[in-house]
């Protein structure tokens, strides 16, 4: 098979190829698409999932160590820390839970009760 010499670019093919800037843009988008496909394949692999599990575990452990150290420091300085605020908020939340349960009981009772009869207008006192 004899290799054909490259043909002269026609007007149509030039238009399709576009300007150099457009060609660069297309090349970039093509590369980005391929990278996207490859990365999605990578993150779906068991190897990545295993690595992600280990990384998560390490990051969480580091955050916990840092948080515990900060809590200890604040407690040593006898300052109210986040955990103290959270404890107070939790107590408020429990009180709100109880109030909500009372409201729900009230709603149930309202559902069971027949509607009150319409009130008669009070007779006006005669002068």
């Amino acid at each position, binding site marked *: 098979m004899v290799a054909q010499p490259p043909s002269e670019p026609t007007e149509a093919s030039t238009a399709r190829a576009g300007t150099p*800037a457009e060609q660069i843009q297309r090349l970039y988008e093509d590369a*980005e698409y391929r*990278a*996207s496909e490859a*990365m*999605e394949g990578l*993150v*779906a692999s*068991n190897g990545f*999932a*295993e690595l*992600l*599990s*280990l990384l*998560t*575990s390490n990051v*969480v*452990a580091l*955050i*916990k160590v840092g*948080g515990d150290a900060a809590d200890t420091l604040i407690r040593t300085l006898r300052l109210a820390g*986040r*955990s103290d*605020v*959270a*404890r107070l*908020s*939790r107590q*408020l*939340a429990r009180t*709100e*839970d109880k109030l*909500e349960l009372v409201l*729900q009981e009230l*709603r149930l009772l309202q559902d069971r009760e027949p509607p009150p009869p319409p009130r008669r207008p009070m007779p006006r006192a005669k002068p």
Partner: protein
Amino acid sequence: MSQLTSLPRQLAETANIVLTTGDAVIGATPKDIVWTHRKVTLWRYRSAVRRHPVPVLLIFALINRPDIFDLRPGNSFVEHLLEDGYDVFLLDWGVPDDEDADMGLANYVCDEIPWSVREVLVASGQRELSIIGWCIGATLSAMYATLEPDDSPLRNLVLLTMPVDTGVSLYTTWVGRDSFDVDQVADAFTAVPGGLVDIANKMMKPVANFVTTYRKLFDSVRAGTANRVAYQSMAKWVADNPPFPSAAYREWITWMYKENRLIRGLLRLRGRRVDLAQITANVLVVTAGADHIAPRHTTMPFLDAISSVDVSHLDRPGGHIGLMAGSKARKETWPHITDWLGQHSGADRDTAPKRRST
């Protein structure tokens, strides 16, 4: 040459759009507070042209804010419902904090949803309602539907991009394995930071989320077609990730992804079995063809598991969020949902034809 000279301005404009994203206005439709409990708020949107007696309750996921239902004026599902004549309520989970660490799935399914349903009925003066759940909100809604007694006020259940059978999914590959220690994460954080969950979600499509989004924005700026408001409203919503209460996080990951309990009928909340066969309400399930978070195959088994007579399935193009909030949602998804709801929201419960359709 002119391209080179305009490049700095285009870069500056792109940066400006990204940097001022926080100023975007989302969730702007006027609404009233109906009920609150802890961080949970029940909102009501009032329609000026109410035609349908059955009110609609919107329930979103725990890992993003529900503003996506009312993203921006002109592109808001809430607006669409109001224009169609519905009395709309929104269950907003709020922004949990350390004190909400004890909020588990049972708190949401057995307390917050039934209580808000009761308040919707009281506020609207109706005896029945429709629930539209999305993502985790759809799964929680389905769980609630199984626990309701026979005289349930739930007439219609619309479930959008709902994970049910998670046996084969990318999430399961990541967190379903033994080496992912969910207890370590849940013990370390009283409320798992929303940013961590967001990074995990974005890692599912890393190039698309971390590169392509910004490249496309730059391209649109160069082309002079950038829609600042549309980009910023969506970007602001995506970046707003409330913490995941640790109890709910632990249960969600363990029960849904490690043990796949829901579809297997093994899930119990406060001793009551969550049996999907107990669902008898009219059901519309909407899946998205390009959904990578709750792929269609994770939703489809739900259709065979329920006992409802009137079941419809709508499969639309788009992704997990784009299905309902993308530029095409207004024409390609919302009308189908409101048409279906309209047929099932008359004063008489039995007016809609009973059928199973896809």
